[in-house]
């Protein structure tokens, strides 16, 4: 479809302009629904946590509070953007942009269905890992440019935490690559075809846990939100940010949550394949459901886990958080690389053939 559009545009425009316009259109088609999903994720979070704590959650704006995210966004936009006197102007303004831009850029390689991907590159997994490793600069620069002790401490915590957990995350991905034999995300999903038992979560169950826990740490969600730690450092790196500066940081955090959920669903939970494949009665009954619905259901479940953890777990102490990352998760992933190697050698199960 987009190739046809590009061909039609290049009849009366320069070639590069036609390509650029097609790319921008593709970006809008991918990013807009994600931003809407992020908006409603904030509502879902407040509702879910509300019900877990036996209260109603937001229920004033619109029917059952369904328009609450728009009211929040409007409120943030209308507020005044306050800049601390001694802050570094350019870096202070660039920081929220740097936090959001990589998260949005990572969506370029995420497949939403068979062939429904903006850029089907060979190194998709590496691309997502590399781009999400840039996110930390938004936090560091925010903390440094604010010229505030609390923000600075938050930035230091964030950089140490994210770099530590990125290693565990990378090793967890290595095992996925070993099973799938490809770094292309579409190929990884194709490798999981054939029903619930062919998905990679069974041979890689500890890696699923490691990846998801590292994802929690990467997104600074509870129980790893010492970066914000309001009891100790007020709000951490974004303490000096007001109005939409703060809003963009929140947007980046929630978009990152959605991204981690998508990556987990694609790499461990069979992507867009139905869990009832090759099951006698259920498969024909559910065959009419399109693939992306299954993907969205899996992502919704993983996002619910994010919210559930937030309502359930207390915050980790910082030294214990570092211990978990370096002394538990990383050795576990390295051991599992060898386990996967052994499984590969003996061609175990439907996953290695």
């Amino acid at each position: 479809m987009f190739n046809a559009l590009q061909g039609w545009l290049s009849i009366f425009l320069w070639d590069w302009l036609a390509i650029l316009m097609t790319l921008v259109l593709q970006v809008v088609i991918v990013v807009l629904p994600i931003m809407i999903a992020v908006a409603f994720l904030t509502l879902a979070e407040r509702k879910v946590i509300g019900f877990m704590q036996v209260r109603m959650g937001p229920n004033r704006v619109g029917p059952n509070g369904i328009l609450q995210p728009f009211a929040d966004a409007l409120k943030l936009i209308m507020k005044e953007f306050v800049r601390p006197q001694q802050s570094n102007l350019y870096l202070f303004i660039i920081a929220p942009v740097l936090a959001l831009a990589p998260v949005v850029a990572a969506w370029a390689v995420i497949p939403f269905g068979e062939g429904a991907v903006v850029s089907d590159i060979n190194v998709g997994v590496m691309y997502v890992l590399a781009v999400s490793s840039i996110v930390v600069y938004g936090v560091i620069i925010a903390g440094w440019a604010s010229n505030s002790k609390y923000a600075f401490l938050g930035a230091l915590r964030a950089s140490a935490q994210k770099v530590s957990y990125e290693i565990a995350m990378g090793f967890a991905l290595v095992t996925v690559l070993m099973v799938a034999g490809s770094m292309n995300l579409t190929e990884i999903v194709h490798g999981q075809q054939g029903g619930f038992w062919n998905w990679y979560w069974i041979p890689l169950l500890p890696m699923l846990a490691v990846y998801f826990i590292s994802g929690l740490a990467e997104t600074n969600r509870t129980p790893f939100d010492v970066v914000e730690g309001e009891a100790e450092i007020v709000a951490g790196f974004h303490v000096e940010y007001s109005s939409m500066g703060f809003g963009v940081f929140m947007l980046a955090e929630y978009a990152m949550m959605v991204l981690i959920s998508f990556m987990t669903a694609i790499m461990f939970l069979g992507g867009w394949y139905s869990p009832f494949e090759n099951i006698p009665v259920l498969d024909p009954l559910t065959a009419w459901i399109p693939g992306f619905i299954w993907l969205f259901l899996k992502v919704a479940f993983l996002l619910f886990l994010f919210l559930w953890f937030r309502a359930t777990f207390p915050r980790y102490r910082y030294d214990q958080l570092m211990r978990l990352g370096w002394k538990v998760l990383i050795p576990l992933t390295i051991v599992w690389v060898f386990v996967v190697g052994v499984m590969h050698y003996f061609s175990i199960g439907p996953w290695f053939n």
Partner: protein
Amino acid sequence: MTFEQLIFYILAAIAVISSLMMISVNNPVKAALWLVLAFIATAGVWITAQAEFLGIVLILVYAGAVMVLFLFVVMMLDINLVKLKEGFIRYLPIGVLAALGIFALMYMVLGPNNFGMDVTGEPVRFDANHSNTTMIGLALYTVHVYAFILAAVLLLVGIVAAIALTIRRRPPHEVKYQNIDKQVKTQARDRFEMIKMQPVKEKPVENKKEEDE
């Protein structure tokens, strides 16, 4: 101009400008950030040269990990910029001379005489499905396998040396260490102990008053 050329010129310009800014800007934190931008732009240039694995590894390792730790250190330094700039004019001629000398050397080695199109030939174009990763993997694990293992051993020695230099076990009376296994195995009865005591009857109030008097 094709779209690819446009992208190349944009990335190359960003790489050159950010490298220049990196060495000319005063603030060390800003210099580190310009260096990050230079890395990212260079990675983009590599990707346009069909070396997508190397480009992404450059971002992942240098921009994503090394520079974060670098920034981590630089941010916490309290550098006196005035003192750093002392003698800038005095040493300028020597600096310019050294810079020109290095540039001349680099030009002789990397210039068009050795790396021109007529020497290297037209670069090979691969189709879109060509995997750069597989090619690098094949070369690393077959032809260069000994060098690869040697590099791995070197890195291991580096890790061990770094840990051996910084580890400092202090005696337990100076510093309390956590025993995580012990903490995890703790049960309620280890924390809470019921002690049997004989009931003690308090003296009546009237007697107390008398004592006070």
